[in-house]
């Protein structure tokens, strides 16, 4: 999952240092140093429920939920709910003696979206970590920003067994119930996920097995939905060196019950072939065991592009993972799933054809 992580570093980094010209080495002030923040370590074991909550000593963290849904009308839908946390200063400087009502060392940003076959609704909301406007806690689990909330149904739930999620924006709102039908998945080595050959890493786990039911409110009316959802949790402090032009990432639910996460980092085109594209993949069996694949095991190729928000974005992909005999084509449910947030990107549901069938989510950045 290094791919997804990388662009989020860039995204939040850009948000924080928005006036730094894009293209500057290592995305401006983020650099490659941890600069006084905690650093992920392979010795650290992830513990629950503690690690469901925030890690303010790390620079960055997120709760990232995507859902593939089907309505009572038979239509396919997608829903996204994301909460980003970003520390403004290292832990040593976080305690301020003259703390006022608004004093904070944490910034929070939420993205929410609903995708239908013909429309895409997006909203962004931001808050500082003061006055209880935004935050997260481990027990009872809750992550929230303004009126958006992802929280455990039962106060004693230590493992994301049953959650509810809600968000609203211009033109839409939704409320979904999530029931976990499988175990939490640890990426990399017990959740210590290495990002690069020079050792950058994050702590990273997921719950890809949610069964969903709920309700979407759209301008044309409400619709009851059921489906599946995937929750990612990740935190770290070290941004990657980022000379790349963008990322493509998928999280796929196959109809046989297995799952695949796959991504590639598109190089800036400056170096040799090896530097240009970096791939990664994790295959999850129907029973919930996972296999991680190193760079080069996976291939992702554009099949065709569509014009979205005045740019050409590949909305049909061919994805191959020979080791699991996967050779599939994925196509956007709605090619206009453009996230017109502070830093825009494409994220939306996809349909799978080929050796496997099913549904999933596609995320792409850096298309100009």
């Amino acid at each position: 999952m290094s791919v997804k992580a990388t662009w989020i570093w860039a995204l939040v980094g850009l948000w924080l240092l928005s006036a730094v010209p894009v293209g500057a080495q290592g995305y401006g002030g983020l650099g490659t140093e941890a600069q006084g923040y905690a650093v992920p370590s392979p010795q650290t074991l992830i513990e629950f429920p503690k690690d469901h909550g925030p890690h303010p000593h790390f620079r960055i963290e997120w709760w990232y939920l995507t859902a593939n849904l089907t309505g009572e009308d038979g239509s396919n839908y997608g829903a996204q709910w994301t909460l980003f946390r970003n520390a403004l200063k290292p832990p040593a400087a976080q305690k301020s003696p003259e703390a006022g009502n608004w004093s904070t060392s944490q910034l929070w940003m939420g993205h929410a979206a609903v995708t239908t076959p013909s429309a895409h609704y997006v909203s962004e909301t931001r808050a500082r970590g003061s006055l209880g406007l935004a935050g997260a806690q481990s027990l009872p689990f809750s992550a929230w920003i303004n009126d958006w909330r992802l929280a455990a149904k039962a106060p004693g739930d230590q493992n994301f067994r049953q959650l509810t999620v809600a968000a609203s924006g211009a033109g839409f709102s939704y409320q979904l119930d999530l029931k976990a039908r499988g175990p939490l998945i640890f990426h990399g080595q017990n959740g210590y996920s290495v990002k690069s050959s020079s050792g950058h890493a994050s702590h990273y786990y997921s719950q890809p097995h949610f069964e969903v039911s709920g309700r979407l409110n759209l301008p044309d009316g409400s619709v009851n939905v059921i489906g599946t959802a995937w929750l990612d949790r990740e935190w770290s402090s070290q941004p990657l060196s980022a000379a790349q032009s963008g990322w493509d990432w998928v999280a796929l639910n196959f109809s046989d019950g297995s799952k695949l996460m796959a991504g590639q980092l598109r190089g800036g085109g400056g170096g040799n072939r090896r530097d240009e594209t970096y791939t990664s993949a994790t295959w999850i069996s129907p029973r919930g065991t996972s296999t991680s694949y190193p760079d080069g095991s996976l291939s992702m190729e554009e099949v065709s592009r569509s014009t979205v928000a005045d740019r050409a974005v590949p909305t049909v992909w061919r994805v191959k993972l020979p080791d699991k005999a996967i050779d599939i084509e994925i196509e956007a449910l709605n090619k206009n799933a453009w996230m017109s947030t502070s830093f825009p990107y494409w994220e939306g549901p996809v349909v799978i054809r080929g050796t496997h069938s099913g549904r999933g989510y596609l995320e792409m950045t850096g298309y100009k």
Partner: protein
Amino acid sequence: MTLQIALRVLWSHWTYRPLQFLTLLVGLSLATGLWTGVQAINTEARSSYDQARTALLPQANQVLQRRDGQSIKLTTYVALQQSGWRTSPVLEGELSSGNTRIKVIGVDLVSMPQTMDSWSQDDGKFNLAAFLTSPHLILASADIAKQAAILPGVAIVTTGKNVPPGTIITDIDLAERLLDKPGQISRLVLAPRQSLMQTELQVLAPQLERIINQSAADIDRLTDSFHLNLSAFGMLAFAVGLFIVQGTINLAFEQRRGMCRTLRVLGVSLRTLALALILELLMIAVIAGAAGVILGYFIAALLLPDVAATLRGLYGAQVSGELDFRVGWWLTGLAIAIIGTLLASFWSLLKLLRMPVLAAAQPRAWALMTRRGTFYRLMVSGGLLMLALALLQWGSGLVVAFSIVATCLLGAAVVLPDAIASLMGVFERFARRPVSQWFWADTRQQLPGLSLALMALLLALAANIGVSTMVGSFRLTFDGWLDQRLAAELYVRTANEKQSIKLRDWLQGRADAVLPVWNVVTTIEGEAGQIFGFSDHATYRNYWPMLQLQQGGWDNVAAGRAVLINEQLARRRGFAPGDVIRLSEDHKLPVAGIYSDYGNPRPQAMINVDLLTRWFPKVAKTRYAIRVDAAKSQALAEEIRLKFGLEGRNLVDQASIKRRSLEIFERTFTITQALNVLTLSVAGFAIFTSLLTQSSMRLPQLAPIWALGLTRRQLAGLEFLRALLLAALTMIFALPLGLGLAWLLLAVVNVEAFGWRLPMFLFVDDWLVLALYGLVATAFAAAIPARRFSTIAPADLVKVFAHER
């Protein structure tokens, strides 16, 4: 090639007459300079307003405010956010650092909608993390960056492009501490896109109302009148300047008729000649225009601090006192110079180009006046005056008001030469001796050449009389009004209500009366305005500057059954005593009277103080007017200062408020008077150039008189006297015109611009001084040509006959 030769030949004219060339350049530069200066001031002010607007409200212009004008609680803000509202808090206030007042705008950039682009620093970068965390990075306007740097909790001060003058923009966390307003929010900026699931404002926070931000939106409307005023003066100065240009160009063309004929005979085509003439004019226009723009820059730089002070004092609009040199002025300045030159030379050019090739090249009597001309001018003038009357009757609005002024001035100026000429005719009829008969006849004959200069003088004098009468009347009225309005000896503002109670108790027996002066900012008839609460006291009944009052009006207001409103509100909305007015959303009262309220651009109303506290229970009960024996007021003020620690703006005596008000008043009209003086100087210059150019053409007319026996000195004296006489006559004509102008300014322009009408007072002393100035200026202007004539070599005069012209 021929074009180049033609140009060189034409240009040689100026090398022989450098003074004429200089006159043309100076005239055109002055006109362009005054115009550009005024434009520069207006542009600078407008860009300051834009800055203020973007700084206060990037993108969105809807805000939530409390109906009673109090600050919003944090819990209200949190509740709104958690119910789906997308708002961003702003905390505003003022603080002093040393002797400087600093406006503090505390914002939460995190929740501010789409701010990142508009919050750039001058170096193009913006470090959000440094802005948000303590010690903070803050944005400051350049003028107060130094003072801002020493504020507690500030780490770095950076000057931002969008920061209005005298202001710092900080994180709301720092603003809370700087202003000592913990837990307070001035207003909430609404994001342009709100979410679908939103609890109604009525349910969530009924004390809030959703309004279009007035303070920012209003500035344009409020200051429009001021800027239009300036523009009108700029136009006047430009018009007067063009009179000079036209006079000089006309003369130069007349003098070059021979030259043009010779060129044509030598084979230069009409097209080439026309092209050469136009090119020459363009060159002159560009040179003079460039000089004018530079001049305009200095005029603007000189006047801008006063303008800025005026706008701040009058409208609370922040305008930077520093002037940026903008490319736009160069272009508009040059354009206006070129347009002006072409306009001024149009007829001369046309006449010259229509001249038959072989026609006599003799200069005709310069722009000879014919009887038909008189008829046309009378028609034009009559038409203009009729138009003015029609506008006065049926028009409305500030532009119309200025149009009336312009048509009146032009209409009067057009007939001036004819009026003077017919007066000369009358004098001529009464003249018995040959020399005096010749004098009147010759004066009349000379009029056409001087008419433009005289018109310019008339305009300048009339404007001067009009404006000084207006300012003088206003000053007199304002002074008297201040005496009434500031009847109390001391004005205090306490820190809080607790202190108010203590102060009132303490003042028992020490002061004659302690009168509350409490107010709320609210909407009156849908416009942002103030409601004052006052208690029934003789101070008001005896002194308050009432313009109209119903029978028993004071009793009705005291009983809470009626309201007093200011003149602006009454005039703008057409309210008269007896009409019912809507004060804030929920309250209505009939109007009992109207009072004058100069210097305040907004609607205002006064009600009984008990009613005010019933309507707005949370009104700040901190401001009081204290009545005390005038002799004891100083001592009492000192005691209050020592006992309650109130000073500075919180404890002010009558005299210093009055002084400050008059200061603002004087500064308001500094610019008007400065432009006035400049216009008059331009007119003086016009007279000078006209006389000078005429004098060179007068030899053929004076030589015969000299030959008949008058000495050169006598002739020179007569020439000098004539100039003075014409100036004096123009002065006499200017007086009624100026008074008419003053009336228009007081009764029409002021009402449209500010919403108040002022009584007119006459200042005879001023007129005499002005007349003296006018005559002295004319004397100077006439002295040089007269002196030149008195020392002319007799041989030159004899030569006139030899040339047989």
